């Protein structure tokens, strides 16, 4: 028996936000429940079920795909997603087991305490936009949400919009965990834009699980304007590893994590380059 005292099914977005605003920190939104049910603090009395609000639809808007916040991760694993956003497909399929993916939702993966979730790291690299409802609605680049400290107050994620892959662009994702279903020890994703074999833009996101994800963009890495080669991938991965300060925990030392960051960043970058159509042969 969990400690929750009240379970309310919201009939509309406005109602959900109003309840959360009234009850305050003693309440939480619940969708998949895979984080809320086992890990919500003892102070949480009231759960607000948001699965009846029609936020589980995926729609194709031409250049971008919109995914509703209560879409289950398993529902991201379809042929259209593999074609238009292979990096999201790969990251979603890396989360936990099929059992978990049948329950956990996209919004919950971004709002939950288990940051950095694999899917969030991939969304940070490709620069997804997150739609929130609270006092009115707003759309925020996911990187800004990370800088703000993710969600505060009673805001609710309703939708995530992601640009489809385009010629000359590529994205990659890599994860290392002790087993296939473990939470990552380190995960990394990279997205880049290439023309004439030269990097035009680059963004790399690294999750080390013990702390907030780190996002690095091209200028800081000195990547823009350089030829995409295997040597450059190695050099950038070294820079990423050197600039992140991973924390040690019971699963991995800081040194081990730093080494993994280097390797995962290199893999994500190499995959991104390949998807952008660059042949990385030495």
């Amino acid at each position, binding site marked *: 028996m969990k400690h*929750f*005292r009240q379970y309310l099914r919201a009939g509309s977005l406005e109602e959900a936000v109003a309840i959360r605003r009234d009850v305050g920190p003693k309440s939480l939104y619940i969708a998949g429940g895979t984080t809320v049910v086992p890990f919500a603090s003892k102070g949480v009395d009231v759960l607000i079920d948001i*699965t009846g609000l029609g936020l589980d639809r995926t729609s194709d808007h031409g250049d971008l795909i919109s995914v509703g916040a209560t879409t289950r991760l398993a529902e991201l694993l379809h042929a259209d997603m593999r074609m238009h956003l292979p990096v999201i497909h790969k990251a979603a399929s890396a989360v936990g087991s*099929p059992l978990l993916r049948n*329950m956990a939702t996209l919004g919950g993966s971004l709002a939950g305490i288990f940051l950095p979730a694999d899917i969030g790291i991939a969304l940070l690299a490709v620069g997804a936009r997150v739609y929130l409802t609270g006092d009115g609605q707003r759309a925020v680049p996911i990187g800004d949400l990370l800088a703000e400290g993710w969600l505060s107050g009673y805001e609710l994620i309703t939708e995530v919009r992601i640009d489809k892959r385009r010629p000359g662009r590529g994205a990659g994702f890599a994860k290392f965990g002790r087993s296939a279903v473990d939470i990552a020890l380190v995960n990394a994703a990279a997205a880049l834009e290439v023309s004439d074999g030269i990097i035009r833009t680059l963004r790399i996101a690294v999750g080390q699980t013990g702390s907030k994800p780190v996002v690095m963009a091209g200028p800081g890495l000195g990547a823009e304007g350089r030829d995409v080669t295997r040597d450059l991938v190695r050099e950038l991965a070294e820079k990423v590893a050197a600039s992140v300060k991973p924390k040690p925990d019971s699963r991995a030392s800081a040194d081990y994590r730093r080494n993994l960051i280097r390797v995962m960043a290199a893999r994500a970058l190499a995959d991104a380059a390949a998807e952008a159509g660059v042949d990385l042969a030495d």
Partner: protein
Amino acid sequence: MRQRKRESILQIRLTINKKPYEPDVAAGETLLELLRRLDLKSVKFACGTGNCGACTVLLDGKPVMSCLMLAPQADGRSVTTVEGLSTGDRLHPLQEAFLELGAPQCGFCTPGMLMAAAGLLSENPDPTREEVREAISGNICRCSGYVKVVDAVIAAAKRMREGAGGGNV
């Protein structure tokens, strides 16, 4: 879903193994706790945190972990447990294959394995060994006997394709 007088109790409606139920549940009661309270003891409590899969049931046909779900979340949904796999005295082909090939060792993880496998076969009647391994990757066997489980799922899939009685799921 109806709120009872005491605020923490609600009445939900759900279908379990094709039968309708309208139990009163506490807001904090997990689906696992509800199912065991209704005497469906195939559903096992082990880790309670979604790491082991011993509590796996089908929710609207898809395998999920009942320890990670609250009973109120199952309002209006359809749940299948191992008790709903067999038809009368006749075991489901998965159960038969598990028995014949010695897939259970201590047996504690077996109900979860069966439901994860049932979910797989309902969507993919001819899985590869790799696909079976992926489907049961969230089900931990402390006896570490995964090979025979994979053998049994492959054997059951073959029998079901050959029409040897599809069982209930």
